[in-house]
């Protein structure tokens, strides 16, 4: 049985691609007939597996780690499709192995959804993990934010080498206290930038209300993001500071660059390669955002930015990172399973920054929930149309000659990209 699983899985992959079907089906097939396939294949990698997890920024951070390691001459296997479930990893593996099941790579860097990462690490203990943040997202799936933190803690506990933690997220930083054998490294943020990363705990504390009981002094971080410029960033590591150009936009993406640097340095430091900082920084400056994460397209000769928003902190960061001035703005809110059915999160985002220019168009299955939310923040609203293709066409027609920005939930973004692909060049994600 095991003998045939790879050729069979590859065949299913070809057929399902011809049909334009989902990326995880072949993974499901091979998982069913050969449950050891993934573990066996990944175990052959000389430098093991690195897992990237957390609520926000997994896709872009994973992309950065891959590009950083490739700049050091490493051959990296990754689950680029954004199918961040175990099944998606198996499907991605099938695409990369030869017909005899051999994987030609030095290391695997995998983006995994918190809940699925737990299953994955039970089967394949990673050598490295990078834990980004625990924010309120999809609580209807995971129940409570403290439970999500427990999932991440489990990933760290199963890691055999280095655990990289976000020093600025208390729920992530605290994981260090529970670890015994692993090496722990942090990535951190300059105090002056902390204010741009409100966490869910101080979300509602009024200005001037006393800070929660004294936090212990912060540990030293391997890489610290010191400053963010218009198209540059300043990082501190090894006792020095370097400024580098950045293609990534949004302070949260650039903070994740510090995370990616820390993981890449750990992997190189463990003997996978000799870290050459000039080429690392060059690679970092060239990283483009993953699709939908601050992606900029061109429509009618004007930029159209897609900003993915899926939880309160992500939405607030999006509003802060991409000022509204001069832009036509649309917000697209769906409540499909992948978006989260619960709309409460919209009430934990402040929309004051949109008050002056207003919002030109609202769409998605919960367009009217969004309209109601904006009404209570006294933000003027233009058109409200739940049908995404119709709303998008009108938004583009009426915003002619202006740069545009669309804040959208996950499935709304997929629908918008599908429509935009008919009129402009949209990167195809395999």
């Amino acid at each position: 049985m095991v003998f045939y699983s790879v050729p069979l899985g590859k065949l299913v992959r070809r057929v399902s691609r011809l049909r334009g079907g989902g990326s995880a089906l072949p993974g499901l097939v091979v998982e069913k007939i050969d449950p050891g396939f993934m573990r066996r294949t990944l175990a052959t990698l000389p430098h093991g597996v690195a897992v990237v997890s957390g609520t926000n920024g997994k896709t872009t951070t994973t992309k950065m780690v891959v590009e950083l390691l490739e700049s050091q001459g490493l051959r990296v296997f990754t689950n680029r499709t954004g199918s961040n479930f175990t099944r998606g990893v198996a499907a991605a593996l099938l695409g990369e192995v030869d017909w005899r099941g051999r994987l030609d790579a030095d290391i695997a860097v995998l983006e995994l959804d918190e809940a699925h990462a737990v299953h994955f690490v039970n089967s394949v203990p990673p050598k490295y993990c990078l834990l980004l943040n625990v924010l309120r997202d999809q609580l209807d799936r995971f129940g409570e934010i403290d439970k999500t933190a427990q999932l991440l803690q489990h990933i760290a506990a199963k890691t055999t080498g280095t655990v990289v933690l976000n020093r600025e997220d208390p729920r992530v930083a605290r994981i260090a206290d529970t670890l015994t054998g692993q090496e722990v490294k942090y990535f951190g943020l300059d105090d002056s930038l902390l204010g741009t990363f409100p966490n869910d705990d101080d979300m509602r504390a009024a200005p001037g209300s006393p800070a929660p009981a004294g936090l212990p002094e912060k540990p030293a971080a391997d890489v610290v993001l010191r400053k963010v410029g218009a198209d540059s960033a300043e990082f501190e590591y090894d006792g020095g500071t370097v400024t580098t150009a950045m293609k990534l936009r949004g302070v949260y993406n650039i903070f994740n660059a510090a995370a990616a640097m820390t993981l890449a340095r750990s992997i190189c430091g463990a003997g996978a390669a000799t870290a050459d900082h000039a080429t690392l920084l060059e690679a970092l400056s060239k990283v483009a955002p993953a699709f939908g994460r601050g992606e900029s397209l061109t429509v009618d000769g004007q930029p159209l930015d897609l900003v993915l928003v899926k939880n309160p902190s992500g939405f607030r960061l999006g509003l802060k990172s991409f000022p509204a001035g001069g832009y036509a703005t649309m917000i697209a809110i769906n409540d499909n399973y992948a978006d989260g059915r619960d709309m409460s999160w919209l009430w934990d985002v402040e929309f004051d920054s949109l008050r002056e220019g207003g919002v030109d168009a609202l769409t998605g299955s919960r367009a009217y929930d969004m309209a109601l939310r904006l009404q209570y923040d006294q933000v003027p609203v233009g058109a409200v149309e739940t049908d995404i293709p119709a709303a998008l066409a009108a938004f583009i027609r009426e915003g002619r000659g202006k740069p545009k920005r669309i804040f959208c939930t996950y499935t709304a973004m997929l629908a918008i990209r599908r429509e935009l692909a008919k009129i402009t060049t949209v990167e195809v994600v395999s």
Partner: protein
Amino acid sequence: MNPAEAPTAAVPSKGTLRVVQLYPRDMNIYGDWGNALVLQRRIAWHGYTPELLEYNVGDPFPDGVDIIVGGGGQDSGQLIIQDDLQARAGQLKELAEDGAPMLVICGLYQLFGKFFKTRTGAVIPGIGILDVETHGTDERLIGNVKVSTTEFGEVLGYENHSGQTTLGSGVRPLGTVAKGTGNNSNDGHEGARFRNIVASYLHGSLLPKNPAIADFLIRTAAERKFGSFSPGAPDDAYAVLAREHAARRPR
């Protein structure tokens, strides 16, 4: 033009209504701010002056409270506020008996009851304003909810809780669930009503899509303070449409 216009300064206020958020720092997990914001805006749209205060653990308790609003929290949040809430039980009970309108959602609904007994048998005492008791379970009740009520019409929201609450004879249910689960998986009831307290598991947030409940709290507060309530005319066109669309969404 947008219906969300602030009242003009030229119109004299009909009086000030003081809204106190209970423990917003520790009990605010599911958009509870939305309820406070809706009260603040609608009080103004009805021509009164809103005053929004926060009460957190260890703060002096404000005087002259007209409306109390409290939300849900994680287990850790409930532990943090537990002692402080017990210390304020007398004041809150007095306000409740005196007819002060209150909205308590999820975690504070449970703690306004007699007790919460966890799955492991530990008993977290409530403050006993509501004749209800809650038992922790392994099952999490999650999803969109539609409730039929006699007082407020159809109430729409979203539930996410593992505690199951049963009502005693001292309270009546807020309504009967038409979609979703509500208080517990047995009796089809959702929420509780006692004097001018509205208690519910529904967030979403509750008040934006259920302006009838918001206006009940405001009217009751105005009548208790000024002897009468003269309503304004808030524009609820978006609320009506948001309700229509929300009611059609899957569980």
